């Protein structure tokens, strides 16, 4: 019975998911997505992961710093465009450089107004991955960094 249901489910999901080209995912959902889910999105070429706050407190930045990119991304064979919107990712995982990405868009969050000066850990405001030359996919043709209203990029590290 379980196998029958499973096979019906698979035969239903493959044509459904297999034609999807773009996904937008709330960052809160990322931890709940099984890695193997990516195998079903064989045509997916564009993914957006978005955070929920335009302006963040230090506690929210700390929460972001513990965020890990969902591993289902590495199972998407045609992923060419990735948008990270208002997520304070500190480091990319080791597999990130192997993604077939051509376009990477990053929009940084802003420190909550009148709050940035009070950050105890100001390292949270800098994304460590920016200084890691090996973490990015060498197939990238476009990189876009967007408004944050606060100096984020350390060009020495780029």
């Amino acid at each position, binding site marked *: 019975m379980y196998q029958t249901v499973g096979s019906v489910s698979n035969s239903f999901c493959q044509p459904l998911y297999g034609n999807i080209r773009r996904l937008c995912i709330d960052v809160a959902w990322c931890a709940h997505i099984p890695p193997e889910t990516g195998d079903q999105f064989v045509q997916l070429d564009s993914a957006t992961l978005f955070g929920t706050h335009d302006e963040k407190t230090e506690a929210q930045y700390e929460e972001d710093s513990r965020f890990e990119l969902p591993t289902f991304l590495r199972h998407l064979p045609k992923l060419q465009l990735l948008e990270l919107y208002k997520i304070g990712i500190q480091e990319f995982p080791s597999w990130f450089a192997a993604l077939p990405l*051509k376009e990477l868009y990053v929009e*940084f969050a802003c420190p909550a107004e009148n709050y940035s000066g009070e950050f105890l850990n100001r390292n949270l405001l800098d994304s460590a991955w920016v200084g890691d*030359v090996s973490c*990015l996919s*060498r*197939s*990238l*043709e*476009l*990189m*876009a*960094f*967007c*408004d*944050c*209203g606060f*100096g*984020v*990029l350390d*060009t020495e590290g*780029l």
Partner: protein
Amino acid sequence: MRQLPCLQELRINGCLDEACPEWLHEIASLRRVQAKYLPFAESADVLRECNLDAIEYTMESGDGPIETDGFVLGLERLVVGTPCGNSLRELNIRGNQLGSVPDCLRSLQLQVLCVSETGITALPSWISELPLIFLDLSTNPLLATLPASLHSLTTLRALDVRETNLGGPQIDFSADAETDTTEPTLWIGGDQGPYDGGGSQNIGDCFLEVVRRDSILGPLSRALPALRLRLHEIPCEMREGHDSYKDSGLENNWWHERCGYDWIDPIFYTCDGCRLTSTDGLEAARSAIGMARRARLAWRVVPCSD
């Protein structure tokens, strides 16, 4: 980033406190750079060594152009006798206060030029020496004329003159709230311009201006039949407040003389959810244009005398 062998486009919008990084020219594959709010003079010294096809260096305040220290001098250093100047085909310097189109652009091979919201008041006659395909002059409320030489710019396919003293009518929603009528108004610059606290006038109150614009737009369109003109600004009240706007395709309605419509016609600035309640001023303006056209035609035709 400089170790990315395929990187062609870099967008750094508001993320740097300083100029573009000095090593940018090391990215041999880089062709397009988009930057907002970066110190321009310093960035120009970096970008001039890059073989770029396109540069967008824009300021977008919404309150008119922003004066940037050393912008024109920086632009000269960027393009005159440099690798960047040789390769550059698209330049967007929207929002930077210029006053006039910088002479240093004259020697370039630009196909796309955006000098929107730069405070320019006139175009130089040498603009027709550039192999332009698209010229964006929008949001320059003191711009009221075009040089005659533009008629010979046969490469030009698109010209944007919205929110200049050459643009077409639009609906003024602020007037609508006060008078409960919806009439077409014409963007009027000069002392009445938006940056001086002025705005637009009902089209029925400015016949002379309508006729003047018609005498510029018509001949230009006849001289360049392949040219499409974008004349009508769509107010945000319509873009955001009317669902029918999304299906109206208004953004695609660029005017040319043989399109079957006059440049003052509502098809360019109304949609199902936002129609005119009064067209009196429009009809009067149409009559004024018709009379002026007939007069111009008669002036050109020399009558035979017995």
